[in-house]
């Protein structure tokens, strides 16, 4: 295979009701974003266990982004409020351990914000690409 420029691996967790629909809308409008963004559908952003984020890093993801409904718009009324606290603390902890803070992000994206979704993914990928590979959290044994 030819040698490509470095492409970071981005895992995006998207809630079913807002952000996943927002990603679909980005598709409907043909708004492109890097193909290294891979979306995992969850019912609500509050379904995302910090362990999933850590697991993604462990398995070699270079950046993890969580997308959910805007605060106040959660389909389940309060799910994203819990997400907001959990991720604020988790990301602060990762930063404390010396993991580059640019690798983690939470973005609220509604079903109508296809453009915002695509733009967010472009920006995030760029930011992660600037950092290079995730060496600090990756478990190299998983790369075989």
């Amino acid at each position, binding site marked *: 295979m030819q040698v490509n420029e470095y492409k970071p691996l981005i895992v995006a967790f998207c809630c079913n009701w807002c952000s996943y629909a927002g990603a679909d809308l980005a598709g409907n409008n043909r708004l492109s974003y890097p193909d290294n963004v891979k979306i995992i559908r969850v019912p609500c952003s509050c379904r995302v266990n910090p362990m999933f984020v850590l697991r993604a890093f462990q398995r070699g993801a270079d950046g993890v982004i969580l997308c959910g409904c805007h*605060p106040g718009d959660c389909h389940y009324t309060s799910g994203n409020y819990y997400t907001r606290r959990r991720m604020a603390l988790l990301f602060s902890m990762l930063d404390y351990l010396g993991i580059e803070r640019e690798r983690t*992000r939470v973005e609220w994206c509604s079903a109508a914000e296809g453009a915002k979704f695509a733009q967010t993914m472009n920006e995030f990928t760029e930011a992660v690409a600037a950092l290079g590979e995730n060496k600090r959290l990756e478990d190299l044994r998983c790369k075989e």
Partner: protein
Amino acid sequence: MQRITREMLTSKAISLLNDGTVSAVLGWREGEFSYDLTPSLFYTAEDIEQNFVFNDFCGANFSKYLVTKTLGIEGKILAFLKPCDTYSFNQLLTEHRIDRSKVYVVGISCDGMADISKIRAITGDGISSISCEPDGLKVQTIYDDEPKTVSYEDAMAERCICCKSKKHVCYDELIGEEGEENPDCNRFGKVAELEAMTPDERFAFWRGELSRCIRCNACRDVCPACTCEKCVFNNPNSGAENKAPATSFEEQMFHIIRAFHVAGRCTDCGECSRVCPQHIPLHLLNRKFIKDINTFYGEYQAGKEVGSRAPLVDYTTGDLEPGQVFEREGM
């Protein structure tokens, strides 16, 4: 030197045992060495008279023992709880892990416990015996003829130097004086120091610390917040199962997951760092969460009240955004 004496505790224990208030006493018994005390149940007055120990090495937090010890016993257990232990005890009550009616809590005031590794750093290895005298700890090593004296101040455990509270938040009866909370304890000093470093420096610091981990699980086993019926690290379906990892990396994962698991529930008792055979400052992970919770969501002390809602199972509509975490710190 503790102002509470062994006699105060044993006479209380024996009288409560004799009048039937309690059917067992949770106390300390001598272990391998005189400074290595083991929490233990006493059922008879004779046993207490002969084997009950109380001195400056009674750091162990009894609250976790009560989770299992109260199950298979008729009647109440008498537990001597230091101020910091009562916070953990309350937290376990909040989580319905202990039946309050099965425990008779005697709060005992605490003047700070000694840390054997600090003593060892002063006297050197080979400690054969330590006695607690009014003017200091008399430490006898196998290499010296005369015992060396270590002052209580020099021997005091780090967690006791920045003790958050000398107040008992739960007791049936109190021995000694009731103390006060100490909001100026500066327990987050080291955390702030780390926060001020560059990410690379922090990473280097933690790699240095966590790579020493031998995954003995002592931190988890002693932690009063870790009382799960089945720990996620033992559960093949949890996605986090791992008992004896091969690389330093997984120690890091283990400690992040563990710290997150107890976030909002950790009372900052410091047992994790006390028992760590590799002297990893694990409490700095927990304190980071506590510090963040306090700054992001307002002061919260786990275990201060029974039934309080932990910050991670609570929210306000105006909470700060994860992206603001770093703006806020001006970093």
